């Protein structure tokens, strides 16, 4: 007669530990930064050694600069109007309406112009670079470039990052000008204020130190936007889903790092250019 073997009682071992996801997250986090550092090193080495990809750089300057100009100018214009409306209301409450031109000038040039330009470019250019390079990666076009004895870090990454670094300050100036014009115009519609009077009052007592560092700090934004987008694009895996993820991550991580960098840069500028 067949007998049924008694069930062996074993102590249940936990299949899933609470610490595992945390360890994996930390491991992925540090691995990501490590990979980013290696990627940046490859890009720097490729960028400083000949041959230089002038033709591709010029194409990217156009792609990042000229094609972002309308969007950046529009964003700057909107910000100028918003600051104008808010500032007039707030300053009126405290009886400081005479401070309006300076408030607008300093708000636009020191604070809003740079960050708005950075975020707009991060959205437009970061997503574009991330998706373009990711698409090239998953269709083996980047491998084909490398197989043709062409350094993809030089051709694809260095040119795009350099274009972002060079174009961000210029785009910021465009956003600033646009914001000041619309801000003045919004004020002039309510109360007569000549443009000459607005500029003279707004920039009264101002030094280059007040405006140049906030404008040129956006070169760092350009580095962040270009670097993150190229890095995300060139390490993509997994077809169309991977391309979408690279584009999204380029914008999200780029924008986040940009805001964090702004915190550091503002403090740095206040210390170095008091």
């Amino acid at each position: 007669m067949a007998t049924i073997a008694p069930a062996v009682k074993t102590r249940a071992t936990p299949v899933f530990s609470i610490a595992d996801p945390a360890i994996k997250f930390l491991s992925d986090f540090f691995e990501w930064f490590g990979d980013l550092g290696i990627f940046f090193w490859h890009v720097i080495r490729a960028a400083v050694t000949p041959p230089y990809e002038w033709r591709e750089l010029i194409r990217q300057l156009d792609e990042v600069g000229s094609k972002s100009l309308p969007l950046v100018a529009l964003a700057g214009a909107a910000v100028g109007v918003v600051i104008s409306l808010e500032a007039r209301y707030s300053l009126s409450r405290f009886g400081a309406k005479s401070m309006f031109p300076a408030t607008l000038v300093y708000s636009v040039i020191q604070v809003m112009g740079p960050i708005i330009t950075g975020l707009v470019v991060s959205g437009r250019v970061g997503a574009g670079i991330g998706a373009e390079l990711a698409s090239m990666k998953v269709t083996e076009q980047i491998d084909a470039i490398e197989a043709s004895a062409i350094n993809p870090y030089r051709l694809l990454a260095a040119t795009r990052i350099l274009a972002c670094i060079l174009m961000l300050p210029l785009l910021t100036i465009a956003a600033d000008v646009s914001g000041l014009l619309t801000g003045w115009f919004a004020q002039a519609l309510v109360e007569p204020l000549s443009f000459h009077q607005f500029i003279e009052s707004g920039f009264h007592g101002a030094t280059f130190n007040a405006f140049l560092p906030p404008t040129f700090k956006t070169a760092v934004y350009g580095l962040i936007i270009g670097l993150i987008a190229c890095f995300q694009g060139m390490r993509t895996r997994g077809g169309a889903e991977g391309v979408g993820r690279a584009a999204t991550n380029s914008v999200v991580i780029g924008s986040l790092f940009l805001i964090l960098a702004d915190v550091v840069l503002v403090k740095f500028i206040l210390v170095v250019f008091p």
Partner: protein
Amino acid sequence: MVTATDIPSQQPKLEAEDRASAVAVENVHKSFGVNKVLNGISLHVGRGETLAVLGRSGTGKSVLLRLIIGLSQPDSGSVSVFGEDLAGLSIDKLSAIRKKMGFLFQHAALYDSLTVAENVAFPLQHHRSEMSKSERRQRAAELLAEVGMDGSLDKMPSDISGGMQKRVGLARALALDPEILLLDEPTAGLDPISSREIDNLILKLQREHQMASIVVTHDLLSAKIIASRLALLDKGNVVIEGNFEDLEHSDIAFVQQFLKQS
């Protein structure tokens, strides 16, 4: 139905001394995570010789090609091209070796923002700076004519068929007059007529250019037509290496199963 065994091999057999190694793969291991793809594989390809690498999907055939052109690095073992071990080579030296190699990717990997002619001229633009734009276009036109694509210079890759893309990819691979040609599934996804056209084209190019070639393929008939030697891979290693007759007369069960199913 025509099978691989009905068609005689069109490649001359090479003597051992002709095989002065263009490519030498020695005891190479390669894993991706826990997935062991190549398991101590060794292969040699001589100048003017064509080796067809056969095997089931996932046996590491394409990985082998990527190792040979330096797009991936082996976990252990060595890959040498013209006697130079690729491990630890500087970027400049690796580039110099890559200029001697042409690579046809499985899906052609044409640059989708460039025209057909620009795709072929792309390596020339970067490595033949002495050539003017018109000279590069002229050379691209010649190469495209060689692969039967002379009427498609200004078309975009998305406007041509898969077989035509393979031809353009082949023309691009030939742009720098390579001494080694690496072909990853040149007939995959093509109809039988297009496949034989590609085979005949490869055969013609090999005869004219006298290159060492490594062809990764599932297509046994194609391998028989274009290769002077075949290597059958299974579980990351070579099961058998020789000419087509050697495979036919092998008593290894896997070889017979592969021949029957192909």
